[in-house]
């Protein structure tokens, strides 16, 4: 019906195209480029095929940091998600304390990563830090710079302190969006508090919790600054997570090929796990 053909509208898309190209596509393709080439310096490159990928996938070092990364990520998820939900459940839903609680909860989220790392580093120092000295004073042999177990404990505690708030805020948002009628109906149906949690609150929080798990999964899998400032990956390699290891290979040893291959593998792991998780969580929602 006399539709006007006007292709000029495509020009409006150009700025976005440039932006995406420069901040995502081109850097990513550079990495892909490095991952399939070998260099002996002098800025000359040779085709290497999948050699670097093979090397990375088979290396003990990569396995070890991937394992540490998995342990770290799943530990903090196992702590932060239930803890976040529990805190959100205890927060008031109306009244003057709501803004107070929200601000208190948001505070850790406003602190820059490296500051968090530095704060906890000093806080946990066994000789002068409040946490370190207290633990030693009450009889624990605590030294996070020397003992791997203590380093892990501090690193996880730091992440829980920094990021549980995010889960709390998301879960809280899910909770306050539940209409009062649901609680009233449950009361009339004689539901016990656990049944209310199980059949009303948890299902209504499902979407926000899915987002919370995804965000915490991706962020913790990529985490770099905080553990780097806190432990620098040590003692030894005991807290060298994937990102720290990657930086060591790429910038410390300047092995561009393996580092590029590792980056891509790293990226694909995060992508694949996020996709699987999201698909599984949302499989019943489409109906």
């Amino acid at each position, binding site marked *: 019906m006399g539709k006007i053909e006007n292709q000029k509208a495509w020009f409006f898309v150009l700025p976005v195209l440039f932006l995406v190209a420069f901040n995502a596509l081109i850097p990513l393709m550079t990495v892909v480029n490095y991952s399939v080439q070998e260099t002996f310096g002098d800025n000359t490159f040779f085709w290497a095929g999948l050699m670097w990928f093979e090397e990375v996938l088979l290396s003990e070092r990569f396995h070890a940091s991937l394992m540490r990364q998995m342990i770290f990520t799943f530990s903090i998820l196992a702590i932060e998600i239930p803890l976040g939900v529990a805190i959100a459940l205890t927060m008031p839903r109306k009244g003057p304390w709501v803004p107070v609680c929200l601000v208190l909860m948001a505070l850790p989220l406003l602190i820059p990563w490296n500051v968090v790392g530095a704060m906890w580093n000093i806080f946990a120092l066994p000789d002068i830090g409040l946490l370190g000295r207290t633990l030693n004073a009450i009889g624990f042999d605590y030294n996070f710079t020397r003992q791997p177990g203590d380093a892990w404990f501090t690193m996880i505690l730091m992440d829980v302190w920094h990021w549980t708030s995010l889960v709390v805020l998301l879960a809280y948002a899910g909770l306050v969006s539940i*209409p009062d009628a649901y609680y009233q*109906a449950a009361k009339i*149906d004689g539901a016990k508090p656990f049944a209310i949690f199980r059949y009303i609150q948890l299902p209504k929080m499902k979407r926000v919790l899915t987002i919370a798990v995804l965000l915490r999964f991706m962020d913790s899998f990529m985490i770099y600054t905080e553990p780097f400032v806190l432990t620098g990956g040590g003692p030894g390699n005991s807290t060298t997570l994937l990102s720290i290891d990657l930086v060591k290979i790429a910038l410390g040893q300047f092995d561009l090929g393996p580092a590029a291959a590792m980056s891509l593998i790293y990226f694909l792991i995060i992508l694949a796990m996020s996709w699987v998780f999201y698909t599984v969580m949302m499989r*019943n929602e489409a109906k």
Partner: protein
Amino acid sequence: MAKITLKGLRHSYMPNPSKPADYALQELNVDWEDGGAYALLGPSGCGKTTLLNIISGLLTPSHGEILFDDEDVTRMQPDERHIAQVFQFPVVYDTMTVYDNLAFPLRNRGVPEPEVDKRVREIADMIDLTETLQNRAAGLTADGKQKISLGRGLVRSDVNVIMFDEPLTVIDPHLKWQLRSKLKELHQRVKTTMIYVTHDQTEALTFADKVVVMKDGQVVQIGTPVELFERPQHTFVGHFIGSPGMNVLPCEVRGGQAFFEGEPVATWNAVHAKEGAKLEVGVRPEFVSFSEKGLAVEITKVSDAGRFQIVDTRKGGRSIKLLVPDGAEIPEKHAHVSFKTDHTQVYSDGWLVTGGE
């Protein structure tokens, strides 16, 4: 099942109410018989939901008491009162099947599983949900979800009263009628006391044996649909119920005779009217007709409403409406109208004038 008595009930949402306007619910004394179907009718904000929440126990009244079968339940929790409520927006437990939704109130009370199964199937059959029993409740349409809400009330054999808070708000118009007649049918079958809150007069009048009309936190009349129609106790009831509403005309009363614009109007209760208050005469359009003599009026508009016509007339700046059967002859421009005496009544400050006072 139970008889419900409200004694000196009042409620304010303020901590220290002092004047009547502070009360969302003015003093209320009502007896509701066991097994009756009642409707609370009134415009938005008239206090009907407040009253409903007080009966269900979601709200504790500031004064007065509620008795179920002479037992004081004022301080009891909703689950101790054995009531059921259907809310404005459907409440279902999303993760459960329809079956589990219906079984939920029974399982929470520790009813043995064979008994649960029997009741659930029986109720599902009553509300036409047998075929969808194993479906997830979240996938149902709005009317299906409202049926589940209702079903959760019906499964319990100990329910004293089932309350409905504007349950048809989110239902499609063509299903509203269906669900309403289903409800009426169910009431006749289970004989549980039911209280239905609405601002829709059609819903109230078709559902209830007795309608409680509320305005500004006050009950203005409790009566059968016929009583509300024929003897509105307050001009508000006259306006609010009926389509079009009652004609209300300012009048004066001299020697037991009402006068509107200086012309006498025959009423059945003018003899009891006292001077000094704002007096009005009220007559429904159904009881006004064209006549040889009577009030001289000017016809301003005729609208066809299907089986009858609504004729708008004016006298002295006041509108008088009358209903004329379809096809009846309507005079041009000028006409005379008369009122049926036994349905024409005088109101004093809005309230019907009666002999007793």
